[in-house]
């Protein structure tokens, strides 16, 4: 996983999997990066091949964390078809702004 800051944007990319194995690390690292007060958080899911309920939980936790802050936007970039299916199955696509580039 790669975290980079571009201006006021926090971009999280190179997420191959988001599962019980790495979801806690994902949450901790991203929440730590929120200390920099980004105005936009983008999670690039274009390389994500596998996600389970722990990964969905990590995304939801991030959604909750950003919802509690003012002037912070969160969006998901280019989810693979499989991840899009999972988001739709769990109706989580309703929570997130999903952007296709």
């Amino acid at each position, binding site marked *: 996983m790669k975290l980079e800051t571009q201006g006021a944007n926090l971009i999280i990319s190179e997420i191959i999997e988001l599962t019980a194995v790495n979801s806690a690390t994902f949450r901790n690292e991203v929440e730590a990066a929120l200390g920099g007060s980004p105005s936009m958080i983008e999670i690039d899911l274009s390389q994500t091949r*596998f996600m389970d309920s722990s990964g969905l*939980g990590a995304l939801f*936790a991030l959604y909750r*964390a950003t919802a509690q802050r003012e002037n912070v936007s969160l969006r998901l970039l280019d989810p693979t*078809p*499989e991840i899009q*299916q999972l988001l739709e199955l769990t*109706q989580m696509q309703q929570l997130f702004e999903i952007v296709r580039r």
Partner: protein
Amino acid sequence: MKALLICPSKRPAIPHLSESGPLATIPILGESLIGHWIEHLVSLGATQIRVVTVDEKEHVAASVGNGARWGVSISIASSSGQPTRMEAAKEFRPKDESDWLPEPHDVVVMSHLPGFSELPLFESYATWYVALSAWMPRALTPTRVRVVEKQPGIWVGSRARVSQKAKLVSPCWVGDQVAVGPGAVIGPGSILEDRSVVGAKATVRESWIGPDTCVGPMTSVASSLAWGSRLIDWRNDSSLQVPDPFLLGSLVAPAFAATKDRFGRPLGAPEPSRAQNPLIAAMHTPLAQSSNLKPSG
């Protein structure tokens, strides 16, 4: 009267539909494809049906038996590849035999449902879904006693358990021994095959749910085919093996069986039995109660 039924071979465009057995035995609104065809040929006067299988002859034989169920005599032959209608007639219909059904019912390739030749079943997942949707009004034949049309365009199995707080939207098919939880919305354009379960507040729209499949509470299945833990978006052929059985899973042995894990390694461990499946326990548990989905803090 005699007839020749030719089973479809596996199709590369729809690999997951033939993972649990030959396409001829795949369930379609509570009956196998070959069962629909035998019933149709019997209604035309067939008394002897010769079935030509391409693969898994034993599976087909187990599905149809000797034909006593339909009051016909069934014999099964094998072919190395799926013959065309002409090839099958040449090989399996001796010229000196008489008393065959008139053309085109004498030799049938099961690539579509009876009377629906304009709707091929196996060209893509989308054609499969479209053909099944169109078949809904035709599936309730006089011999089907375990499904009734409750309201126009809403067919429900007599042993189905549909919560009074669930909503069925026409057209939809709720098969035999199906359970639908409170707050669930089924339809339009939804087919729940026999013994499937839809949890509380789940929605199933423009989708086919395979037999013995559990759709978890509060989930949403739209424009998809779901069988066991396999979820296929029929609009774009995207396919997903859902990892968490409380979202989508099999109530019995896997139908769309995975042979490899996500790393490409062969899978060795069998799926839990119906009694062991955590899905059973999760059926009445709202998704939000799952500890895995609870946010921290």
